[in-house]
């Protein structure tokens, strides 16, 4: 299928060019972000971006007097982002109008067989390359200190998917494409249900809703922007030098509007007396929260002299709710 191969190449190349034109790589590095801001890209290309409850459709691209991208509110943020990237592909490559249902999730973007038409093939390849380019995957592995071998473990793959803002399944495919994992590893990984992985991070705690994501946060997440959904769960796992009197203080997290649902300590070296423990606190975001907190490890009697601290920046407003894309709506309000 020479035609399909050409379409994939066109889509992938367009994604690369748009990253460059919008300076997306520099933005990610400077802002310490881990996800490509696909909605901003749509807006920067001059399209009206709208979210409304759709039934069977995930999204649509309507170029009329005004360019328009419509995305459903009835799906989780990773699906909204993927749909956005697909529509952005149509927009950037000046395609014909397109209505897209969940076939865009099922089609394998890099298979050279299949019956989707050429512009759909191009948009599929565009979306995958736009959301998970090689440089972003490499940056994530470097920041997190993850090895390729670790990513064959569903727990790490799931955490990688949260950082990239792509679904677990899409992330497995992306990392296979970038040769971080093998095909056989990918096949094993996609058999694992994300719910099962979440359960492992949470231990005995049962969330009210299994659609939320469970972030494992460590020292490696210092300063990076955590972009998730309202009610997401955070398992903060930190080394605690309690033998020397140092304790992590989580009051700031509570003050910022998180509920602490579990607090646990694990012995990392059971034989050593006065050694380090691992402190594991599970927090749940209560609302659409945005901001930052600094956690400190200090001695209770000298709280001003922390041994370590961890800055967490978070934006938990996803998924997008009905109406115009929020930043654009804020601009309209300010101009009025």
């Amino acid at each position, binding site marked *: 299928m020479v035609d399909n191969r050409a379409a994939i190449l066109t889509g992938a190349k367009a994604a690369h060019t748009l990253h460059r034109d919008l300076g997306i790589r520099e933005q990610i590095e400077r802002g310490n972000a881990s996800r490509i801001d696909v909605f901003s890209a749509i807006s920067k290309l001059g399209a009206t971006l709208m*979210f409304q409850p*759709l039934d069977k459709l995930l999204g649509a691209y309507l170029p*009329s007097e005004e*360019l*328009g991208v*419509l995305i459903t509110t009835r799906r989780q943020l990773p699906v909204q982002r993927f749909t956005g990237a697909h529509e952005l592909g149509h927009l950037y490559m000046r395609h014909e*109008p397109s*209505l897209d249902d969940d076939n865009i999730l099922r089609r394998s973007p890099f298979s050279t067989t299949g019956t989707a038409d050429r512009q759909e093939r191009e948009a599929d390849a565009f979306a995958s390359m736009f959301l998970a380019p090689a440089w972003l995957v490499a940056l994530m592995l470097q920041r997190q200190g993850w090895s390729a071998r670790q990513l064959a473990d569903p727990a790490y793959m799931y955490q990688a998917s949260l950082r990239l803002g792509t679904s677990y399944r899409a992330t497995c495919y992306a990392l296979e494409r970038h040769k971080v994992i093998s095909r056989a590893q990918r096949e094993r990984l996609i058999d694992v249900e994300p719910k099962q992985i979440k359960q492992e991070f949470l231990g005995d705690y049962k969330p009210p809703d299994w659609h939320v994501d469970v972030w494992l946060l460590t020292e490696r997440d210092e300063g990076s922007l955590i972009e998730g959904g309202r009610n997401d769960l955070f398992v903060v796992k930190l080394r605690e030098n309690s033998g020397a009197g140092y304790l992590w203080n989580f009051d700031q997290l509570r003050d910022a509007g998180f509920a602490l649902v579990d607090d646990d300590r694990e012995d990392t070296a059971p034989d050593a007396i006065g050694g380090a423990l691992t402190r594991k606190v599970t927090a749940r975001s209560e609302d659409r929260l945005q901001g930052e907190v600094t956690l400190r490890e200090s001695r209770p009697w000298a709280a001003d002299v922390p041994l370590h601290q961890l800055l967490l920046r978070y934006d938990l407003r996803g998924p997008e709710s009905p109406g115009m894309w929020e930043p654009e709506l804020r601009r309209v309000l300010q101009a009025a």
Partner: protein
Amino acid sequence: MTNDRVGFSQPPAEPDRQVLGERLKEAREYVGLKQDDVAKVLAIPRSALSNIEAGTRKVDAIELARLAKLYQRPLAWFTGEDPNATTEFAKEVAHVARAAATLSQQDRQELARFADFLKSRAKAKATSDGR
């Protein structure tokens, strides 16, 4: 404080005013603005906006112009004929909608609303640029 209190306790909704109120509400909700945000921009109490949308308070011309701008619609969208009567699919949309034979009623409706909004926004932009 507000004009509509003078002499009347709460005037009954006139049919035209009620239609206008409904359209204002529909337009506000479509873009995702809250009554609070809009009331702040107009510098009126939220209850006044609520009454406007219920058709029990008059909207003056200046307020209407500001609301239209905020909701990104041309004035005629609010004051003209029923906007929904004319929103069969625009040509471009009709073309793809035909292609997607299995389109559900709801999706069809949302696409028509979005196409109408795009058209409105283009017109609203053209008028404000021309000033």
